[in-house]
């Protein structure tokens, strides 16, 4: 199997503090790869480095063998990478469906004149997009909000809406940043099913998550970060048995320790 995403010796410094330090790992095609670690372990920073929001101090990120160095965030969707955010990034000035349709941006006509005149080809493309995106909302389980404005949706549904928007760009790899944060148990279980369905479609998933139950039940591979460094990597069973991981979690007295035990 070939690595779809490969991170080599990646480092990021903020004023002398290493948020991510000399980190290397690979994510294989079609897998669900989780990244866990205590708060401040550098998980979100890692996502921001991979998706071009931050520039690394050192090291490299390759997607499908292509270096992502110097790519702007907006150049990653065409390369097949999309992500969601820990703090929601939803356009509250648009309807739920329009938010998802935004995800299909790169598949739709963008000509100024065609848009002003609403030329037939553009209208047809947009109409098809509307239907596809409605299906996607159904797929992630927020179909009941199809005709809602984004600002009128509950938090849990917005989290799914963001996943639907990311899926709309037809990514090869999807990065989910704490999708279960703020969700209750039932919602989290439903989310697990959605993540599985996404993986079943052949989309590689990289998951940053605090909810150990979710991580352990859905992941093929787990990477544990601590203070920006790799602490351990392996299958959920290996991670569960790893003494270093247990130490780190017990040492930091995080609620996750219960889930690990």
């Amino acid at each position, binding site marked *: 199997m070939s690595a779809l995403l490969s991170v080599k010796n990646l480092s990021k410094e903020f004023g002398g503090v290493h948020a991510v330090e000399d980190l290397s790992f690979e994510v294989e095609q079609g897998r669900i790869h989780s990244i866990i670690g205590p708060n401040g372990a550098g998980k979100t920073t890692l996502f921001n480095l991979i*998706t071009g*929001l931050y520039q690394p101090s050192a090291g490299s990120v390759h997607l499908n063998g292509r270096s992502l160095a110097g790519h*702007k*965030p*907006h*150049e*990653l*969707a*065409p390369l097949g990478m*999309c*992500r969601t*955010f820990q703090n929601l*990034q*939803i*356009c*509250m*000035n*648009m309807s739920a*469906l*329009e*938010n998802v*349709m*935004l*995800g*299909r*941006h*790169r598949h*739709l*006509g*963008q*000509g*100024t004149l*065609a*848009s*002003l*005149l*609403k030329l037939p080809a*553009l209208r047809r*493309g*947009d109409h098809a*997009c*509307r*239907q596809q995106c*409605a299906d996607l909302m*159904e797929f992630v389980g927020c*179909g*009941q909000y*199809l*005709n809602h404005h984004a600002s009128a949706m509950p938090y849990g549904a917005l989290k799914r809406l963001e996943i639907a*928007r*990311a899926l*709309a*760009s037809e990514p090869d790899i999807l990065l989910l940043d704490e999708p279960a944060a703020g969700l209750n148990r039932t919602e989290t279980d439903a989310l697990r099913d959605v993540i599985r369905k996404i993986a079943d479609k052949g989309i590689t998933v990289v998951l940053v998550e605090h909810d150990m139950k979710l991580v352990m039940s859905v992941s093929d591979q787990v990477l544990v970060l601590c203070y920006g460094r790799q602490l351990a990597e392996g299958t959920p069973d290996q991670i569960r048995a790893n003494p270093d991981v247990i130490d780190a979690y017990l040492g930091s007295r995080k609620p996750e320790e219960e889930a690990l035990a």
Partner: protein
Amino acid sequence: MATVKTHRKAPGLIALFVILAVAPLLAANAFHYDLMIKICLTAIVAVGLNLLVGYAGQVSLGHAAFYAGGAYASALLTQNYEFAPLPAMLTAAVAVGSLAWLVGRPILHLKGHYLSMATLGLGVIAAIVINNEDQITGGPDGLPVAPLSLFGHELSVFGSYEWFGMTITGTQLWYLLAAGALFLAVWLALNLIDSPLGRALRALHGSEIAAQVAGVDTAKYKLRVFVISAVYASVAGSLYAHYSGFITPDIASFGHSIELITIVVLGGMASTYGVILGAAILLLIPQFLTGFQELEMVLFGAILMAVMIFMPRGLVPTIARRFQKEAA
């Protein structure tokens, strides 16, 4: 599966058409027509500026520069280079659009108040240049402009025309033209807002980061909507120049820029019909206040503050929301 509701544009456009068609019945004299024409032309600028400010969330405090750019370019091209008004108007629009593209590239990287500051600076510089280069622009004394002619027919406000056996004054004809132009401007804007490009523009306001991960090159799209709104202003400026027959640097002033942004915020950001109402109100208020003479400024300032304090979303969105709440 739930059915997808699509946004219908027809009812709004029909309502606008009816209002524009009925408005002349309220006009008793040429002065009323003059006011209505000016409202239509100002509304065109506001509809374009709203694309930038209301929908894409980028503030411009210097849009009068583009309006004046269109007006002066039209005036100079028809007067000094023997352009016919229509080609002059198009050339002016292209020139103003290119200028907006050139100046927009560096400044649209700026965020928030720094962008306001930079657009304000550009506007004031344009006004000072127009005032000082009197060899070309006539300076503070202003510049006469040839009347509009369409396909060889001159359209002067002082003229009188036969139309299907009816006698119609030049001013009335001008109203038809201005109202038609406004209708077209609204139709184009509504199309744009509802297109994939429009969604990308609205996402700039909603969440720039969301736009970026969806693949929107945010810098490029800010520039596009800046240019589109500048072209709206330019065309309205050209029409105004031909209509009024005389232009002065006042139309480029900081005060005029502020008036334009006020119209957008007052009528309602991200509400195309709202900003038309905003334009009507802002141009009508002084008419109602002329009776108070001395008090005009005080009342105007007080009204502006009161509306913005009690209806921070602007008139139309606030009222629409209230109706929706009652309906629900």
